[in-house]
């Protein structure tokens, strides 16, 4: 539970650091991209702290490259 609080506190701190400056300068689109990234990151962090299954992109890369890698290893050995 405290992990989620920590993540939210960090997110709020990051908002506190960046958002006032962005709003003052009127950088709308920048604010959107920033918010999306932060929302995604916070969501990922909370999902991780709840031990929800997060897909591992390395698994996909391995799935794609394993046949080639195995064939190459057999060929070289």
């Amino acid at each position, binding site marked *: 539970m405290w992990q989620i609080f920590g993540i939210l506190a*960090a997110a709020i701190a990051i908002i506190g*650091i960046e958002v006032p400056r962005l709003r003052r300068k009127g950088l709308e689109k*920048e604010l959107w991209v920033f918010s999306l*990234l*932060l929302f995604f990151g916070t969501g990922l962090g909370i999902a991780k702290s709840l031990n929800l299954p997060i897909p591992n992109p390395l698994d996909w*890369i*391995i799935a794609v490259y*394993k046949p080639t890698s195995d064939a190459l290893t057999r060929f*070289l050995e």
Partner: protein
Amino acid sequence: MLDRERIAARQFAIMTILYIIGSAILVIPSLLAAKAKQDAWIAAIAAVGIGMAFIPLYIALGKRFPDKNLAQYCEIILGKWLGKIAFLCFLIGFPFLIAALTLRNIGDFLTIGILTRTPIQVIMIIVLAAVAWGVKLGLEPIARAAEIFFPFVILLLFLLLLFVSPYLQLKNLEPFLENGIAPVLKGAFTLVSYPLLEPVVLLMIFPHVPKPKEAGQALWRGVLIGGMILFAVTLFSVSVLGVDIVKGHSFPSFELAKKINIGDFLQRIEALMMFIWIITIFFRLTILVYVISAGLAQTFNLKDYRMLSLPLCVILTVMALVIVPNSSYLLAFNQKIWPLYVYNFGLFFPLLLWIAGIVRRKGKCAARKDETG
């Protein structure tokens, strides 16, 4: 980027060196020894030779678009939307992945090496806080910081190698080429894939050096010096520790530092030597996070990139934890998958851009007629 940040060629060379040494200095001796055994040092030389062969491609791209970064000429060459999509794939598939792996590396290193009872998340967050702040300050301060820290890194590296030199045992390097040239080449390609094919991300910084010619020379120098340092560390690790210890440890150069013993008096100064690894990995991460932030900003046509560094670091922390479930998974990935995967973005992507640039007559040759690009 709309605001032109300028860095000197010298700073670019230093950043390249720090980027190349990065986390590789920790793990490369072990990865090389796993394949090439006692000939790891030959593999390191061969790898630097092979790695240098890719640099003309990067420089050719950089010179073709002297005032544009990789993200910008991706859009010019491939067209606006295809360029943006291709670059986004590159960004997620290469710098972002490398950053997450590097972060994981320093986390593993510090938790296994000295801070054994500290949760890895804490270390990652502390490192990333510094990295995010560096990127928030911008490219010029990063370059200046690199210039300031670089002499200390070199001095400590020199001292490290000097202090362990009494333990050099050339018999650890024998028998020479025991199993022929094949294992050496296999080892060499490990080092080529990590980190010698990675300077492609530096093409995001390349245009910030005012003169492309100097930037090209800086890239050559940086990769060469970085590669030579990796070679020296590999040579010393294998000849001091012996190939079995190097193979068996994840971080052999740290074991090397533990060997330091000056007159039975000055011992266990590896924590001091840790400065080397922390600084090089810090700059590697900072450069990567800069590249991702600036690349994203360019892709979405933002006026600034600095505010993206903090949220990016939040994502990076989680990804560094997610992508490596355990160390044997990482080892298998590093040895089997990464050496193939890296060619996608390290070689084929810039090669494709370069050829497409020539075919579609984009860049410097056409620049005079078509200034707006």
